[in-house]
């Protein structure tokens, strides 16, 4: 029954338009704003589920397309469409946003209506990024996202929020403006901003190299990859819990998504030629950033660094695939690498979202994020401790959790390409376990650290709901990743075909 609805437009505009009544609910009636935004996000989630019945999993093509002329003179279209990769990420977005809204119920008290409205606008724009099939439209969503996030961190953030949010904005803007120049260049080559046209246009080696690096800057900042990651710890630490969750769970994924949508299909030859750069950067992220995480004293910072390390796996999986397809002619394992990267993205969305929510739970009670202020939380918050330990295990990639699946596939693919790369990448299993478990030991276990910890209240119903929802998702895709991989298999197979063919003009 939904087949004829403009589902994607509905998904994008429902939260954005819904932000208006939320904003108008005013400062003095926070509950009205909360319920209204909850209603809107739940509706959005339901609409995103409604995408599934008409969606054909076996088809690699863009589906549920909507195409309207936006700027006729420039051949720019409002063109939306999704394949399995987008669907997975959209579901992650709508699911996480519901939990974020619920999670903000108790922890955001000032200017609730503005907070909720910014969250809703952000949700719509992020969904737009995953749906856009026109590069200019993509860019508008991609950049537009910065505005609500800037406000979210700056208004509801911690002590150094102004520094963090300015750094976040300028860093990401810096990354993407070169992409805009690159896209304009491509426009003159292809005669339109249509993604499919950009993917087909022939490009010489030099052109590809320039474009590849323009895209690399944009997406590497977003992912973020070493050495352009420094905005992330600051932004994460200062952002309110909801902002951190969105940032870690979804916004970082947009970088990985960009590599898959832009870098690989548009500049396949340059991607192959410079894959070693990205692979090296990924390995540094996995190993070096892992060690950096080890020494953090701030819980949020620790999880932020762990996010960078995990996102290193994503970029590794994506670019190891190039070596596999071209040099070793092993497209099947290449598919495994990209699959692994995608599963890792989704799984990291759940796990990091849950970890940040956990820290938020503690922060709401103690108003500190320093590890040394805790200790023995298990004694006063047993239910919380159970869930926290579960997410920590998932974060180290324990089999049975979704954290294991992606990492394992990426390492398998890397092993086929180069055992040394795989060996380096596998380090993460040790370092990840080290920093996560040490965090657990210092925060959760041991004697009760101080009086404040002794007075802690365990999770209330709302918080339990959020964390259990995350936990179920982590467990589901850990034990049964099939639906996820089946959803994304067709477009990934198509992508591997695309990067097999050289574009040399």
């Amino acid at each position, binding site marked *: 029954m939904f087949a004829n609805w403009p589902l994607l437009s509905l998904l994008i505009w429902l939260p954005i338009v819904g932000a208006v009544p939320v904003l108008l609910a005013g*400062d003095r009636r926070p509950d009205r704003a909360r319920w209204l935004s909850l209603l809107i996000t739940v509706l959005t989630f339901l609409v995103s589920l409604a995408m599934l019945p008409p969606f054909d999993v076996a088809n690699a093509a863009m589906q549920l397309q909507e195409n309207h002329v*936006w*700027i*006729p*003179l*420039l051949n*720019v279209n409002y063109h939306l469409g999704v394949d399995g990769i987008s669907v997975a990420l959209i579901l992650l977005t709508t699911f996480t946003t519901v939990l974020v809204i619920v999670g903000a119920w108790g922890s955001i008290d000032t*200017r609730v209506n*503005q907070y909720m409205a910014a969250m809703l606008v952000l949700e719509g724009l992020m969904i737009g990024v995953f749906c856009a099939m026109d590069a*200019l439209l993509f*860019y*508008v969503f991609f*950049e*537009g996202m*910065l*505005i609500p996030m*800037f*406000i979210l961190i*700056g*208004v509801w953030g911690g002590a150094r*929020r*102004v520094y963090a*949010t*300015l750094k976040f*904005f*300028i860093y990401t*803007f*810096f990354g993407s*403006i*070169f992409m*805009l*120049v690159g896209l*304009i*260049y491509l*426009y*003159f080559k292809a005669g339109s901003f249509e993604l499919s046209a950009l993917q087909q246009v022939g490009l010489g080696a030099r052109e590809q190299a320039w474009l590849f690096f323009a895209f690399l800057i944009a997406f590497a900042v977003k992912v973020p990859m070493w050495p352009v990651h420094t905005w992330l710890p600051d932004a994460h630490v200062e952002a309110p819990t909801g902002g951190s969750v969105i940032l870690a769970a979804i916004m970082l994924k947009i970088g990985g998504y960009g590599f898959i949508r832009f870098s690989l299909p548009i500049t396949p030859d340059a991607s192959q030629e410079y894959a070693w750069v990205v692979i090296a950067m990924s390995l540094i992220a996995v190993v070096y950033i892992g060690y950096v995480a080890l020494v953090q004293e701030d819980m949020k910072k620790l999880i932020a660094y762990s996010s960078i390390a995990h996102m290193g796996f994503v970029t590794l999986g994506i670019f190891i695939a190039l070596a596999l397809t071209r040099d070793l002619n092993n497209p099947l394992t290449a598919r495994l690498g990209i699959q692994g990267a995608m599963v890792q993205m989704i799984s990291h969305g759940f796990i990091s979202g849950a970890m940040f929510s956990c820290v938020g739970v503690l922060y709401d009670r103690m108003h500190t994020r320093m590890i040394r202020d805790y200790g023995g939380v298990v004694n006063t918050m047993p239910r919380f401790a159970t869930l926290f330990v579960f997410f920590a295990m998932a974060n180290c990639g324990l089999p049975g959790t979704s954290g294991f699946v992606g990492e394992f596939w990426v390492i398998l693919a890397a092993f086929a390409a180069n055992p040394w790369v795989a060996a380096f990448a596998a380090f993460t299993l040790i370092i990840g376990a080290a920093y996560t478990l040490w965090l657990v030991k210092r925060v959760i276990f041991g004697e009760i650290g101080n009086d404040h910890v002794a007075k802690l209240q365990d999770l209330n119903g709302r918080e339990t709901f959020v964390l259990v929802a995350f936990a179920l998702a982590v467990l589901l895709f850990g034990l049964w990743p099939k639906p996820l991989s089946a959803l994304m298999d067709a477009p990934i197979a198509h992508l591997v075909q695309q990067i097999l063919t050289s574009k040399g003009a």
Partner: protein
Amino acid sequence: MMNLTDLLTLLPESFLTAAICALLLLDLFVKPAQRNITHYCAIAILAVTAWLVFDGNAAPSAFGGMFVHDGVAQILKLSILLVSALVFVYARGYLRDRDLYVGEYYVLCLFAVLGMMFLVSAGNLVMIYLGLELLALSSYALVALQRDSGLSSEAAIKYFVLGALASGMLLYGMSMIYGATGTLDLTKIHAASVASAHPSLLLFGVVFVVVGLGFKFGAAPFHMWLPDVYQGAPTAVTVFIGSAPKLAAFGMAYRLLESGLGGVAPHWQQMLSVLAVASLAVGNIGAIAQSNLKRMLAYSTISHVGFLLLGLINGTPAGYAAAMFYAISYAVTATVAFGMIMLLARAGFEAEEIDDFKGLNQRAPWFAFIMSLTMFSLAGVPPLFGFYAKFLVLKAVVDADQLWLAVVAAVFAIVGIYYYLRVIKVMYFDPTAQGESHALHADAPMRWIISLNGLSLFALLAGWGTLYGWCARAFGIVQ
């Protein structure tokens, strides 16, 4: 010989001239308490003129090519009239609070509008000069409107001296062009510039003309007057000279450089690209250091002029269309930015320091929202209006095979982000300063119009294609 078609073509300007004289007389009989009559009459005059421009059955040119009436002139005139009307709405409360609510303000502004209308329709060097001087002389007087203020007078003198110097340069350049080509008519100059094999005298003229244009635009390194004048003039005047004249300056540049000196385009394009890069650098870096919002916006104007000039160096219709789109978007956005300063101002308080916006989100969330839209638009962040303007200019630059210029522009756009974000930071992230919790007392028309004006920056998300279509058609691009 003058004939009826010529007169009909000139109808909007003729009407405006007559109406200004009538308004000047009317104002003599209006008591200060009834000044609203002058105010509404002035807006009505702009509206009628706009209708005449829009609806006129005009010939493409009149008076033997002295006066050109084409799509470019029409769009620029409509935009100038619209922006001026917005300025009048925003300025009223501010003027009244400062005992500046006088008929002269309206009359001088209208004369400046008349000058701009002639300027963008000029088909002859003499017309350009006359239009420009009418605009400039009115502006000098406007800046000095607050005659008891030392800052204002200083700004006016500076503006006058440097402006006169620029006019002199321009005139000197024109005289050399006349010497080289033997004509004042722009189309004939164009033909001569294409034909001339050794154009050294002509090129000398071009240099002086570009310098004069640079002064009028406020492009670096001829920008020295701009921050002082913007800061020193009463905000009601700053909003006027900061918005509509940029449209006129674009029109003048197009007439002089493309219609007139198109034959030596590679030469002036090179000069303009130097000016553009210098303006982007000076404007964006200079703005970072400012604590006065008017001064910051002045430096931001310089950087925007740099962007606008980048559109001109492309030398194709698409480039001019992009530059015109940029000029319109800038003028519309700048009126909101300066309008907000007047919205927050009250008797004895100027609200022109960036710190005066502290905690605006707590005091007036709606206007903080409008101001943040304005700042994001000036910074060129999608999905706001300013982004599409920047996008079109970048596209024109890439089209001209000047990728490095596009990269330079992109780098300075990043630098520029910082100072716009600082205004938003002050409004949203900082608490209200002590004793700043006064209510806004701007009048209702201003609140409504500035809200619409601000929201349009966002709403044009859907409609900018139409506007670009008009600009493109004006330059003969057909789909």
